[in-house]
C-alpha cells in the first residue's frame, strides 16, 4: 500500500454503539445513516484490521455526511484510534482525538466529506500493519474543539480510512 490507498471503509451498519451518547441508526430514502445530535456529543465506533500492506504513513479519515435538515452551518467532527494489540479490551484505550470541521451543503441531502488527519505513531495509537483497531467518530456538538453551529442532526453515510 502507499499514500492515498484505501485501508478501510465503514458504513452505518458497522457501528458498534457505545453504552451511552451514541449516534442512532436511521434510514434516509433507503440509505442507512447514523444520526449525530446537534446539542450533545455523540459517537460511533467501528472495528477493523489495518491491511498488512500498510506502508507506515499517516492516516486520513474521510467522513461522508449530510445534514438532516440544515442547509448551512459547520459540524465539528472528531476521530480517535485505539490499537487493540496489548489493549485490555475490558477498558478503552483510544489515543487523543483529532478534529476537523465541515460545512453543510446548500441542499440538506447532499453529502459533505470532512477529512481528519493523523500522523503516524502516537496519534494512531501506534497502530501497525495487521493490527486490529477501533475507530471512534464523534460529533463535537458542544463545540469544545471548534465551531459546531449547524442546526439539527448530522447524518453519517460512510467512513473511509486512507493512508495519507
Amino acid at each position, binding site marked *: 500500500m502507499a499514500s492515498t490507498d484505501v485501508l478501510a471503509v465503514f458504513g452505518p451498519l458497522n457501528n458498534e454503539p457505545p453504552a451511552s451518547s451514541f449516534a442512532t441508526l436511521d434510514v434516509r430514502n433507503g440509505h442507512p445513516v447514523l*444520526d449525530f*445530535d*446537534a*446539542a*450533545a456529543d455523540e459517537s460511533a465506533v467501528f472495528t477493523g484490521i489495518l491491511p498488512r500492506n500498510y506502508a507506515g504513513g499517516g492516516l486520513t479519515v474521510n467522513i461522508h455526511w449530510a445534514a*438532516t*435538515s*440544515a*442547509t*448551512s*452551518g459547520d459540524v465539528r467532527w472528531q476521530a480517535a484510534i485505539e490499537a487493540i494489540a496489548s489493549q485490555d479490551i475490558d477498558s478503552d484505550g483510544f489515543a487523543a482525538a483529532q478534529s476537523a470541521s465541515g460545512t453543510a451543503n446548500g441542499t*440538506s441531502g447532499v453529502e459533505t466529506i470532512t477529512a481528519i488527519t493523523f500522523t503516524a505513531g502516537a496519534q494512531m495509537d501506534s497502530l501497525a500493519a495487521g493490527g486490529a483497531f477501533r475507530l471512534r467518530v464523534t460529533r463535537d456538538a458542544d463545540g469544545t474543539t471548534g465551531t*459546531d*453551529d*449547524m*442546526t*439539527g*442532526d448530522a447524518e453519517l453515510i460512510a467512513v473511509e480510512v486512507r493512508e495519507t
Partner: protein
Amino acid sequence: MAVLSDSDRAELHALFMSDTSRERQTIAGLSKPDLRAAVNAADDWAEANKAAYNNALPVAARTALTAAQKAQLLMYVIRRRYVVGA
C-alpha cells in the same frame, strides 16, 4: 411565573432541533446560536404578554382555568393554526 431558566431554554433548544430533525423539516440558513436566540425571544415574549393573554380570555375561563390550563389552551390553538393546519 418568570422566564424559563437557562437550562430549560437549552433543553427546549435541543428538543426543537431533535424534533425537526426527526421530522426532516428543512431549516435553511439558521445557526444553532440563531435558533437559541429565537428560543430566548419566544420565552421573553410569552413573559411580556402573559397578562395581555389572560385579559383576552372571557371572564368565565379566566376565572375557572388554572394558569397551566390557560397555557395548554393557547398551545392547542397555536398548534392548530400553524402546525396541523399549515
